[in-house]
């Protein structure tokens, strides 16, 4: 049986990939020069986020604290509200952002969305060629027989997401993708109504989820990793999908958002 068939192998995966990555990360951190001096900036304010999500939100090595840098602002903002309002569940996250205002959460989301930091190379796929080819087909073409849209129909042809609300699928570890799709299937992760992703994931089997996650996690990043400005034209015969989103709040303050490279 393929090790990649289920989520039960996460301990092994962690030991194989995450631990060396964590050590490399820690080493990189300690090798860096003295910590930057205090500045009255949004980057300084977001240091409570980057403690887990990695410097500049480039993801933590363990695969469970995803990358924030470069994700569409609307998507990040929606996720912050989802944690606050109980549509996603992680106590640490909820507790941290609870005392913050909508406007400030939007500013934090915008800050991370504007960061352009390089992606690490994807980890080599460990799944069988059959699994990977099944995943590739679902991502790029969907399965019309099951009314399953292709992932790229919404997440962009380049899979780098579509501004302002749809996240990219690349640069995420397989375990993270598996965990998120699994959470959606179990009703543990939700989005604003209408929850389009819930409808899509309901049509995926656990095998489908693993195939999609295994293939997507192994794809290299294109030259431009920015989210597309608009949705790609729908494939012939594809049904339109409506997704819910929060209304963006009015801007917080006069202080402009400053992206740091």
């Amino acid at each position, binding site marked *: 049986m393929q090790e990649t068939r289920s989520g039960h192998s996460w301990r092994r995966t962690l030991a194989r990939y995450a631990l060396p990555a964590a050590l490399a990360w820690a080493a990189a951190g300690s090798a860096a020069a003295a910590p930057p001096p205090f500045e009255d900036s949004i980057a300084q304010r977001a240091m409570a986020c980057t403690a887990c999500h990695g410097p500049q939100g480039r993801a933590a090595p363990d695969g469970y604290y995803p990358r924030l840098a470069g994700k569409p602002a609307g998507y990040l903002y929606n996720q912050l509200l989802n944690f606050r*309002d109980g549509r996603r569940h992680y106590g640490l996250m909820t507790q941290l952002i609870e005392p913050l205002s909508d406007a400030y959460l939007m500013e934090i989301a915008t800050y991370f969305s504007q960061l352009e930091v390089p992606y690490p190379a994807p980890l080599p796929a460990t799944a069988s060629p059959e699994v990977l080819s099944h995943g590739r087909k679902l991502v790029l073409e969907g399965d019309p027989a099951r009314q399953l849209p292709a992932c790229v129909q919404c997440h962009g042809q380049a899979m780098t997401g579509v501004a302002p609300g749809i996240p990219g699928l690349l640069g995420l570890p397989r375990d993270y993708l598996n965990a998120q799709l699994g959470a959606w299937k179990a009703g543990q992760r939700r989005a604003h109504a209408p929850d389009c992703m819930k409808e899509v994931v309901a049509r995926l089997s656990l095998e489908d989820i693993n195939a999609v996650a295994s293939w997507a996690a192994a794809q290299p990043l294109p030259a431009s990793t920015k989210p597309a400005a608009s949705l790609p034209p729908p494939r012939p015969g594809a049904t339109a999908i409506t997704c819910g989103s929060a209304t963006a709040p009015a801007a917080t303050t006069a202080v402009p958002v400053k992206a740091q490279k």
Partner: protein
Amino acid sequence: MNKLSKFTLAVVVLAAGASALVWALNVRDEIDVTVPVAAAAPSESLVARGAYLARAGNCQACHTAQGGPAYAGGRGIATPFGTVFTSNLTPHEKTGIGSWSPSHFWRAMHNGRSKDGRLLYPAFPYTSYTQVTREDSDALYAYLRSLPPVAAPNQPHTLRFPYQSQAALAVWRALFFSPGVYEADSARSAEWNRGAYLVKGLGHCAACHTARNALGGSERSLDLAGGLIPMQNWYAPSLTSPYEAGVADWDKQHIVSLLKNGVSPRASVTGPMAEVVQRSTQYLSDADLGAMAQFLKELPASHTAAPEPAAIRTGGESVERATKLYEQHCAQCHGAGGEGIPNAYPALAGNRAVTMGEASNLVQIVLNGGYAPATEGNPRPFGMPPFVLVLDDTDMALVLTHVRQSWGNRASEITPLEVNRIRASTGR
């Protein structure tokens, strides 16, 4: 009559007497809710006043489920006796307070009794709200009636035996609750009295800042001398002790700033108090905050004797390691000398939140991180990162002991066991 039946009779008489006493104590100061009240259409100003008072009482925070419609209830309040679910306060006819009269609402606030006659659980802090005037109760009622009705049936509480029974609750109330509107102290200023009314009444500060006994009652009804918040492992520090959160020697303006902005030159708020500032006190007028500050400043001091300075660890491997951990993880923001950065990161040297005898909050904040609340006066607060994934119990205990015993701080050491207790209770 033989001995046995005499004894039985005595027991029956005693039990009947005790029941009558408990019953009598439970209906003290109750009005007749069947007397109709002249119901003039509520004026806009009455509704606005009610909205303001609802902020002062922070009603919405508990009466709204996570992500749910405002005031429709359903938030679970975990208590040592089980979970109490808050009720729907919207004017929905069937599931809310749509069929309540102002008198029903008053009886709930003043006597802790629901429209149908049931006794209410004191997770609804009527032990404080009983001090609220009828006039303010009517304004709150008018405001709640102005909300859009939401159909959301009340969720039954999940309390353990015997706490779920009305009889047990009646006994509890006989012991720990007596109704009574705030009585002004004519020897004090109008400002002090206004502050006392807000702190003791709608503000229900005593719900957290006064210790509870094993039955969840407060023996000294309003000493504000600090208490552990049940189930949360946060300690609401004493407002009367100069070694905890007493403000007797603070500038009044700094107290106002703390309640309005969440930050002040003397301290900032985090944890459960951040929620209070964010949802309640930041919306209060400067006059009301000033009145609360005046009252808090004049609270009689307790524990005026300084705590024994702890034996300080000096030298050795653990001190070296703690120093290194501090430099690596803390010094960037809190400074090499624990001096902090004004308006961003609190100083640790001389910080009462660091040196307080009860260290739960210190462990919580280092484990889970936290932001000061985003308020109009401080819309973009700085934050503390969580260290729950970075430091194990031993290292966290070392670094916490280090900050409690450096730069003139003289507090007791923190053990890995204490860290572990809080870590385990928060499920991480």
